[in-house]
C-alpha cells in the first residue's frame, strides 16, 4: 500500500502551513510550517497539547480557515485559494466534520440535523423532489450509528454519546471523502469514547473512509493507522505507522 501511496498524490495534503491569529495587538503564531497528508482510506491521528495548533490545522485542511502561508491540496489540486463559493461546495461535498462539542443545531430534530448537509446542497425544489430519498438515507445513516430510536428527538434530549453519533451521521450523509474529527471523544466518558472510536474504525475499514482525527489522548490516537505529533505549530515526529 505504501507503494501505491508513493505513486499517486495523497487524497488530502496540507503543506508548510503557517497561520497566526491576532490577539489584541499581538500576532500569535499558531502553525509554523506544519504539514500533513492522508491517502485514501487512511486513518491519521494528530496528537498534541491544547494550544499546539492541531485544531487550526484541521480547520485549514477542511477549508474552514485559510492559511497565511502554505497550500492545501486535494488529489494534487490546490484548493485553499479557491473562491468562497467553491470552498463552500467542497466543504459540503468532500469534507465531513465532527467536533468535540457535537455542534448539532438545537432547533432541529436529530433527523433534520442529519439531513442538514443535503438541505444545504440542494435548492428547495430539488430537495422537495428528493425528500423521500433524503429522508430514507438519513434514517439509514442513523441506523448505522445506532440511533433509529431517537430520530425525532431534539439534541437537548440526547446524551453526549448519542449526540456525537448523530454528528457522525450528519457528517457522513453527504458521502464525503474525508472525515475531519476534532477531539471526537474529548467530551465523553471512557466507555462512550470507546464506542465512538469503534464506530470510526468500522467506517474506516468497511467504507474505506479517510479520517483525520485530532486528539490529545494518546490511547485514542493509537487506534489510527498513523499518528503525528504537533508541537508548537510544527509536526514533531511520526509516532507510529502501521505496517500496511
Amino acid at each position, binding site marked *: 500500500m505504501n507503494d501505491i501511496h508513493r505513486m499517486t498524490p495523497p487524497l488530502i495534503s496540507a503543506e508548510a502551513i503557517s497561520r497566526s491569529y491576532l490577539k489584541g495587538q499581538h500576532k500569535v503564531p499558531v502553525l509554523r510550517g506544519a504539514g500533513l497528508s492522508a491517502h485514501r482510506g487512511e486513518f491519521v491521528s494528530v496528537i498534541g497539547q491544547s494550544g499546539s495548533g492541531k485544531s487550526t490545522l484541521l480547520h485549514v485542511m477542511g477549508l474552514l480557515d485559510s492559511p497565511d502561508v502554505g497550500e492545501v491540496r486535494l488529489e494534487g489540486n490546490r484548493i485553499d485559494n479557491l473562491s468562497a463559493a467553491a470552498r463552500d461546495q467542497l466543504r459540503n461535498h468532500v469534507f465531513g466534520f465532527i467536533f468535540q462539542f457535537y455542534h448539532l443545531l438545537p432547533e432541529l430534530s436529530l433527523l433534520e440535523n442529519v439531513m442538514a448537509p443535503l438541505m*444545504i446542497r440542494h435548492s428547495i425544489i430539488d430537495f422537495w423532489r428528493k425528500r423521500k430519498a433524503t429522508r430514507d438515507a438519513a434514517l439509514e445513516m442513523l441506523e448505522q450509528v445506532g440511533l433509529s430510536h431517537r430520530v425525532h428527538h431534539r439534541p437537548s434530549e440526547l446524551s453526549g454519546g448519542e449526540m456525537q453519533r448523530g454528528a457522525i451521521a450528519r457528517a457522513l450523509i453527504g458521502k464525503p471523502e474525508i472525515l475531519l474529527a476534532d477531539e471526537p471523544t474529548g467530551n465523553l466518558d471512557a466507555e462512550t469514547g470507546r464506542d465512538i472510536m469503534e464506530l470510526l474504525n468500522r467506517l474506516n475499514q468497511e467504507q474505506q473512509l479517510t479520517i483525520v482525527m485530532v486528539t490529545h489522548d494518546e490511547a485514542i490516537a493509537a487506534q489510527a493507522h498513523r499518528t503525528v505529533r504537533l508541537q508548537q505549530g510544527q509536526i514533531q515526529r511520526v509516532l507510529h505507522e502501521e505496517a500496511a
Partner: protein
Amino acid sequence: MYKLLLCLRYLRTRYIALACIVSVMLGVATMIVVNSVMAGFSTEMRDRLHNFLADIVIESRGTAGIPNVDEQLRRVQECAGQYIAAMTPSIEVPGMVTFTDPYSRESYTLPIEIHGIDPEGKAAVGPLKDYLDSYNAIVEDGVVVRPALRSSDVPLGWELTPQGQEHYELVQERKRMFLDEASQSGAFPPVMDRTTESIPDDPVFDSVDATESGDTLDAPGDPGTVLTDATGDKDAAAEQSPEMMFEDYKLPVGSTASEPARIYIGEGLVSFFVKNQQTGRQQKVMMVEPGDDVIVSTITAQTPPEVTKFQATVVDSFHSGMSEIDSRIVLMNIKALQQNRGMHLDDAITSIHIRLKDYADAEKALAALEQAFPPGQVTIRTWEEKQGLLLSAVEVETAILNVLLFLIIAVAGFGILAIFYMIVVEKTRDIGILKSLGASSSGVMSIFLSYGLALGVVGSSAGVMLGLLFVHYINEIEDLLSWLTGRKVFDEKIYYFFEIPTSISPWMVISVALGAIAIAVLASILPARRAAALHPVRALRFE
C-alpha cells in the same frame, strides 16, 4: 431549504421575536385605524360639502349679481349642456338674522349667509329633502323623539306644515292681543327720537313672548337696540303705534316686496344642546320653530349698498351635518330675496349651481363655461376649488398623521434591529456549524433576511386583522371606553356624526402592510450582514 426550515423554526422557538411581531402589529393596527377614521371623516365631510354645493358653482364677482337669469341659464345650457344634469340659480349674500330666545328672552343677532333658492331647483342639484327637519324624524341618542312631519313625496315648497301653521296663527294671535291691550291701556310712552329718523320705514316689530310658549321674536328697530335688553326693545317698539307695526309687518321694505319672505333656517343658528335631567340624554332645544318670525337684515343690490331688513317666517330648519353650513346659512325663497334686494327689476342672481351628469367631466365643463362667460364677470369653480382650504387642511392633517404613525413603525423597526442583533449573537455557533456544513455566506444572510420578512409578514397580517376588527367594532369600542371613563369619548354634538365614520381603502391597508414588511426587512439587513460576515472558526469557538 435549510434557510426556510431554520427561519420557521426560529420563528416558532424564539419568544423574543414575539416582541418584534407585537410592535409591528400595533404599529400597523394603529395606522389602519387612524387612516380609516380620518378617511371616514373626510369622505363624510366631502360628501356633505359636496351635496350642499353641487358640482360647479358660477358666482358673480359682486353682490349686485348678474342680470337676466333666464338668459344666463340658457347660456350655460348652450355651452355645457351635454355635461349638465341639473342647475338652479341662487342669490348668495351676507346678512344677519335676529331672533329672540323664548327661554331667556334674549335677543340674538347672528351673521349669516342668505341663499335665495328655488327649493325644487336646489333639490335637483343636491339632496335638500334629506336636510329639512320636517321631512326627517328627529333622533336623539338613537331614539326617535319625533317622526317625520312630511312624507318624502310631498313636494318642496315654502308652505308651513299643519303644526307650523298652527304655531304661526297662535303667534299672530298673541301679537294682536298684546297690541290691542297696549293700545287700550295707552302704555306706549312718547316717541323717542333716536331710532326711526335714520331709517323711517324701519320694520319694527315687537313680539309678545310673555306666555309660556313664548316662541316669538323681537324685531328691534335698529341694530343698536338689538343689543339692548328686553325692556329696551319694548321701548323701541313703543315708539310707534300698534297699527303702524302691522303695516310694517305686512310690507317690510316698502311696496317692492310682494312676495312674503319665507326661510329655512340652519339648525346650528337657532339651537343648543342641554342634558335632560330625567332621561340623561342630550336634547336639542330649538330657539326658533317653524311658524316663528325672524328679522333678516342684508344689503341691497345697488352701489353703494344699503342695509335692508325684513320680516321672514321660518318654514323649516335644516341640518346638513356640516356645522360650517348649519350655523351660517339661511335658505330663502329667491323671489322674496330678489324683491327685498331690488334685484327683481332686472331679474338678477348671484350664482348658478350646476350638477353634472358625471363629475369626471368637471374639467371639460369648466373649460366650456369659461369660454362662454367673459372673464371678470363671474368666477366658475368646482365645489372642491370653492372649499379648497378646508379640504386641503384635512389632507395635510392626514399626511402629517401618517408620517408620525409611520415613525412609530420605524421605531418598531429599530426594535427588530436590536432584537435581531441579539439573536445573531445567540446563534453565532449555529452559524459556524452551518458554514462548516457548506452553507454560503449569502445563505446564512438570507436566513436572517427571511426571518425579518417572516416577522414583518406575521406582524403585518396580525396588525391588519386587529386594525380591521377595531375599525369594524369602533362604535362598540367607543361605547365601552365611554362607559369605562364615564364620559363621552366621541361626542356627536361636536362632530355632527352619530357614529364614528370609517372608510377602509384596500390600497391603504396594502400599502401600510407592505411598508411595515419593508421596514422589518430593512431592519434585519444589518444583523443579517453581520451573521454572514462571521468567520466560521471563530463562530465555532464561540461559547
